[in-house]
């Protein structure tokens, strides 16, 4: 190594450590400090099926679906700058694709879920392609309308069982499968996306969010990267859509329900935009909460909205950002 390279290395490393670009893992304590929150989430999710009773196991599956959708929403909104309210579209496309493959061609869920994820994602991406030039609220409006559009096409042309839907799809083998499919795909999506946004591809996407003109001036096609981002989010969304169809053994118009567009946003607001893990935590709190409040009847929605309102007013940064900050403060706690 030449003297110049040694100089660079000496200078860069110390500053990188101080600027938190690089962790120096010098002790078990520091490694535990970094790993503890991650292991808590992973361990908690993997252990949950053993602890919960049958009813709450179903709630866990529903929460997992919302969590994956919320992650996709957060990824598109905070890292690519596309506010996508198309959660219902992803669920619908994925669900219908899986259901039809299962009912018409008789493929087993092992094949239909991954196939439907890819088919649904391709379809969503192609449909959204002309809208990718739009930004901000315009893109949001288009994506919000598309599920309505799909619903009315299905009703008007009496496709795929029209308003009745198709019942009697194959369901997953047993309740262990049901839960571990969603838990493991949730964790894979979470850590996959977190890795993706720190890779060069993720940096380019964040660049597009910050300043798309400069990305063009850097010789990079913003359209290609937007397509890629939408495909990734749609893939995750359609996967859980297909999973949902096989979870309940049924497909119908309620797969295009607005809940799938709205709940992920609520989860993201609560969990914290731009954290990816925040939306997961938000979904894991909000979905069981809305189940627990079932006893209140219609008041449930009021309470639910109240909680969201309080979060927006008093903790707009979201749970995850708040907890992360506190965690780091705790680490540097000095008694004086």
């Amino acid at each position: 190594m030449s003297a110049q390279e040694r100089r660079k290395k000496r200078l860069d490393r110390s500053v990188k450590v101080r600027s938190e670009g690089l962790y120096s893992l010098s002790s078990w304590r520091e490694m535990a400090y970094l790993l503890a929150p991650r292991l808590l989430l992973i361990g908690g999710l993997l252990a949950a099926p053993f602890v919960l009773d049958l009813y709450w196991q179903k709630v866990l599956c529903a929460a997992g679906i919302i969590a994956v959708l919320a992650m996709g929403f957060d990824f598109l909104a905070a890292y690519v700058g596309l506010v996508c309210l198309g959660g219902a579209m992803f669920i619908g496309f994925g669900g219908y694709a899986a259901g039809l493959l299962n009912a018409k061609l008789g493929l087993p869920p092992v094949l239909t879920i991954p196939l439907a994820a890819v088919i649904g994602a391709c379809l969503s991406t192609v449909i959204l392609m002309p809208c990718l030039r739009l930004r901000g609220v315009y893109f949001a409006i288009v994506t919000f309308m598309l599920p309505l559009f799909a619903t009315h096409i299905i009703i008007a042309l009496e496709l795929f069982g029209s308003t009745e839907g198709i019942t009697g799809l194959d369901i997953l083998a047993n309740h262990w499968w049901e839960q571990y499919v969603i838990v493991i795909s949730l964790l894979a999506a979470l850590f996959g996306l977190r890795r993706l946004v720190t890779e060069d591809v993720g940096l380019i996407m964040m660049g597009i969010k910050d300043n798309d003109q400069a990305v063009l001036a850097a010789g990079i096609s913003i359209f290609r990267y937007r397509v890629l981002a939408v495909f990734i989010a749609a893939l995750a969304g359609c996967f859980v859509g297909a999973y949902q169809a096989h979870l309940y053994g049924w497909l119908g118009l309620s797969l295009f329900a607005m809940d799938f567009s709205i709940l992920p946003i609520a989860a993201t607001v609560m969990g914290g935009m731009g954290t990816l893990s925040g939306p997961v935590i938000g979904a894991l709190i909000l979905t069981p909460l809305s189940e627990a409040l079932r006893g209140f009847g219609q008041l449930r929605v009021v309470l639910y909205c109240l909680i969201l309102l309080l979060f927006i007013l008093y903790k707009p940064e979201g749970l995850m950002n708040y907890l992360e900050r506190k965690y780091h403060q705790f680490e540097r706690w000095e008694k004086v």
Partner: protein
Amino acid sequence: MAGDILLEVTELSKSFGGVHAVVNVGFTLSRGDVLGVIGPNGAGKTTLINLLTGFVKPDRGRVIYKNRDITGAAPNKIANLGLARTFQAMRPYHSLPAYKNLILPLNSPRIKKAAHGKLGDRDSVAIDILEEIGFERDARVPYKLAGSLPLGYQKKLELARCIALKPEIILCDEVFSGLSMAEITSMVPLLEKMVMQGVTLIMVEHRLRELFRVANRVLVMNFGCKIAEGPPLETMARDDVKAAYLGGGGSK
């Protein structure tokens, strides 16, 4: 290599509605030239840059770059051919650290092709470029979020993003505007260094004294038209140029 024609612009025109932003502007640029584009506010200088780099499609006229017609091509295609530009209103990728800002141009097809797909340690290449342009390597500046950098550094970052593309022509849109005298004096040597390394420059500028230290030719615009072109001091001495700047109506 010096002397051969890099860029040939003929009869370039663009109107926005009824406003003729650029009218029949033509010039040629040879390798190693530094062309200053000057003129009063609203003369169409920035539109000219936008036309050359594809951000705005011209109504008429041709832009020939190295014997290749790039009129109206997509901005990213033009950048990949080696025409880099800075923006007048700097908007760095504010949520990325300064050195990560350079990862984007370093990932462009142009650089990938030049490196034969092997990009190596991009972070250290990025910091090398930043150090060259005046970011202290042993300080935290390159690692700070670009949005939190002071104006002078943001301007330099804007230039660094161009240099990272290894361009043949850099189009600078008012790199001196908004900077203090001290920052400007540290900027001029950077530009001189780039010229010595064989980069051709087109500079839109209002700070004439600093511009004339670098530029070997100026092109004066007013109301979208080219009114004069030539060596800086002679051109500025012309009556019509003085009139454009001082608004004398050409009567003196």
